[in-house]
Each structure stands twice: as structure tokens, then as C-alpha cells.
């Protein structure tokens, strides 16, 4: 019962509590449109990663419902749900005992794709993320740089061509140059692939650059959903510190010229 033009993911009155009563997420209501890149922006500990994990059911809501393609996450078969969603995390989490090729090919293999199809898909997706197959396919993760590892992580997430993609601060641990490279490549990729992406970040510049919309999370609650322009114009007093910080950064850079 999916809605091709409309809503890919929906949070309906979602609460998430641990240890009995400590609420990490309270009263979350959010709609994510198919094909959009939604940034989850917030400070450390604000609940943005928790929100992300509620989508692929690494966590289950204490109250309320999270719907993916119209069906509650608790109704989905959890394995099918997760295969339906690509997952890319900050540390990449590549399997150290598998080559790049084996890392990327794993899910297609488990999905019982034909070997030839797997082979060509691995080549295709490594190309997408900018890693020439011949050079990289038989390397092990400990033979890659941080940026290369993130690219493989992204390739792995895209391998089975899932319509949805969850990314948890994927570029956070990289140096600024590499980060910028990957951000730009990501934008190019999105223009081509048009996947529904939910992207967690604490970096306001990254949010403004990459996202179609920005959902601001603070202390476990949704404080607003904005486009980049709306965000910069907003008087919301949670938004303001971000804008100030952003402008301050720009000033510092200008002053250094």
C-alpha cells in the first residue's frame, strides 16, 4: 500500500522511552516525502540518531507508530524492512574480514541475486561512489583511507538498490576536504538516483547544502521543518543560534581573506 507520489516515511505521535520513564523522543509527528532528502539537524544528544533508528526498527517506539511505505514498522517483517532501506553510519562499519567486493556484494548475495548480476552491480555501484573497480575491489578495509571507507559504506548501502536510505553523520569523521568532496558527490548522486534519504547531521552548513528540507530536533522533540531558505529567515529561537553560528563562521572566513 505505498504511495508513489507521496509519503515514504511517517512518524505518528511517536514516543520513545528508556529505563521506564526517560523519554528520548516525545510526541514526534513528521512526514517524509518520497524522493526528498530530509536532514535531521540537532545538537549532540538531541535524539536525531534515535529518530533515525526508529525507521529501520533498530529501535521500536514506546508509543505511536512509525510507518514506512504506509505500513507500521512493527507490521513489517524486520529483515525485509531493513533490506528495503540502505543504512550508512559514521564509522562505516565495514566487515574487516571481507574485501571491498565482498562487503558490497553481501546483501545482493543474501537476496539470492544471480552471480553475474551481482558482479555487474558491484562494479556499477563502486563506480557511482567514485572507486574504480579494478583498483579497489580486492582491497581490505584496513587498506583504505577514511574517505574511501565511507564511499564503500555508501556503495554497500546502495548495493541492493533500496528506495530508502538512512545516513547517520556519514561524513562526520572525515577531514574537511574529503568531507566536502563527498558532500558534493552525494548531491550529484541524489540528482541521478532520487532516493528518499534521511540524513542525520549536527553541521548546519551540511544541512543547508544537502537537504531539501531540514527537520530541527531538540531534546527529543521536533521543533520545526524548514527549507534552507525558510531556515535562514526563521525567528524560531531554537533556529537562531544555528543561524548565528553559521553567519559567524562565514564572517570568520571572510575576515581571513
Amino acid at each position: 500500500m505505498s504511495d508513489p507520489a507521496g509519503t515514504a516515511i511517517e512518524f505518528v505521535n511517536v514516543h520513545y522511552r528508556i529505563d521506564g520513564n526517560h523519554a528520548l523522543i516525545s510526541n514526534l509527528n513528521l512526514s517524509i516525502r518520497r524522493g526528498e532528502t530530509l536532514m535531521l539537524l540537532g545538537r549532540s544528544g538531541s535524539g536525531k540518531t534515535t529518530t533515525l533508528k526508529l525507521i529501520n526498527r533498530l529501535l521500536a517506539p514506546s508509543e505511536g507508530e512509525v510507518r514506512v511505505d504506509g505500513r507500521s514498522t512493527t507490521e513489517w517483517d524486520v529483515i525485509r524492512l531493513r533490506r528495503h532501506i540502505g543504512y550508512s553510519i559514521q564509522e562505516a562499519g565495514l566487515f574487516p574480514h571481507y574485501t571491498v567486493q565482498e562487503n558490497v556484494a553481501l546483501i545482493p548475495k543474501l537476496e539470492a541475486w544471480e552471480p553475474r548480476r551481482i558482479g555487474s552491480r558491484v562494479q556499477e555501484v563502486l563506480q557511482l561512489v567514485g572507486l574504480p573497480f579494478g583498483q579497489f575491489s580486492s582491497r581490505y578495509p584496513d587498506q583504505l583511507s577514511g574517505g574511501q571507507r565511507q564511499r564503500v559504506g555508501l556503495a554497500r548501502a546502495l548495493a541492493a538498490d533500496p528506495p530508502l536510505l538512512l545516513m547517520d553523520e556519514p561524513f562526520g569523521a572525515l577531514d574537511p576536504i574529503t568531507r566536502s568532496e563527498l558532500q558534493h558527490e552525494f548531491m550529484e548522486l541524489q540528482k541521478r538516483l532520487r532516493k528518499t534519504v534521511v540524513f542525520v547531521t549536527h553541521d548546519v552548513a551540511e544541512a543547508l547544502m544537502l537537504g531539501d528540507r531540514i527537520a530541527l530536533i531538540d531534546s527529543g522533540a521536533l521543533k520545526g521543518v524548514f527549507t534552507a531558505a525558510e531556515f535562514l529567515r526563521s525567528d524560531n529561537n531554537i533556529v537562531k543560534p544555528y543561524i548565528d553560528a553559521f553567519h559567524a563562521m562565514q564572517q570568520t572566513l571572510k575576515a581571513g581573506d
Partner: protein
Amino acid sequence: MPLFAFFAVDKRQLLTLTGEHLWLVGISMLLAVALGVPLGILLSRRRGLRAVVLGANNIVQTIPSLALFGLLLPVPWLGARADRLAILALTLYALLPVVRNTYVGIAGVDPPVREAAVGMGLTPWQLLWHVELPLASNVIVAGIRTATVITVGVATIAAAIGAGGLGEFIFRGLAMVDNNVILAGAVPAALLALGADLLLGFIQRTLVRTHH
């Protein structure tokens, strides 16, 4: 001179006793691995069992081997056959290193790796087969190696309750007050332990993936 004079002992008997020793160690280790690895895997899944299982294993380990043999002798089906009893006792001793190392090895998998694997949609069995066991295999084989060396040693005591093996030379030598006979049991036993350690160390290095 005296140290190698024990070679004068009946070669055929030496071979027989060594064979018996290998049999005791081999069966016990097979059982310990067949039971211990799954048990270790189970412990990595169920937090509640950990204290109980590891605690029980610890208790068995602290019982001196001869005492454990003695405790099991009166048990009806077990006491009737010394080799059965010896194999049970040896398996119990070998279990702790295997179970503990399996559990520790699996629990020691890098958290991001585990999170990525689960988030990608690996079923628990797939997680075990593709991620946890391969990454834990080094530690697991190390546990098997420790267990094997222990078992070779404790198996010498099994002769005291009539299970045969190289310990028989040792006890006979004590009764005869003959050092050569004692050595005829002690030296091969020590060599077996060393050999097992070297062999499993080799396996640990070559069969197990090095990129961790």
C-alpha cells in the same frame, strides 16, 4: 644418559599408551568444541545465562582433577566404565576456555560492524555466520588451543582411575620406583602437549583471516 634411557621401555606399549592418550584427548576435545562453541554463542545472545554458565564452569575448573574423578566414580552409569568417566571429566575441564573464548570473541566484535550488519538486514544466523564467527575465530581457536593443552595434561591423571593413557607409565614407575618408566610417560605427555600447542598455533595463524 638417564634422561633418554626411557627409550629402552617397550616401544609397542609406548605406542599403545600414546594411542589411548590421544583417544581420550581427541574425544573430549571434540565434545568440548561441539558443546562449548554453541554454548558460547548462546551466552552472547542471552545475558541472563552468562552468570550461571560461566559460574558453573568456574566451579568445575577449581575442583582438582583427581578430586573430580573421585566425585564421579560413584555415579552409576559413569563409574562403571573408567574411560566414560575420564572423558566426561576431561570434557568438563575443556569446556570453560572454549565457552568463555567463544563468548568473548563474539562479544568483542566491533560495535559499528555489528550495528551496520544488523541495520543492513542480516538475520541473526546470517550475522553469526558472516560476521560474528569469522571475526571471533581467532579468539575461539585460541580457546581451543588452551583447552587442548590442559586436556593432555589432565589425561595423565586419568590413568589413576584406570582409563589408560601415558599416565599409566608414570604411576607404574612410581610403584616400581623406576625413573625411566616415569619419564617414559611424562616425556611423551609433555611432547604431546607441546605438539598440540604448536599445531593449533599454526592453525590459528593460517586458517584464520588476518585482516581484523
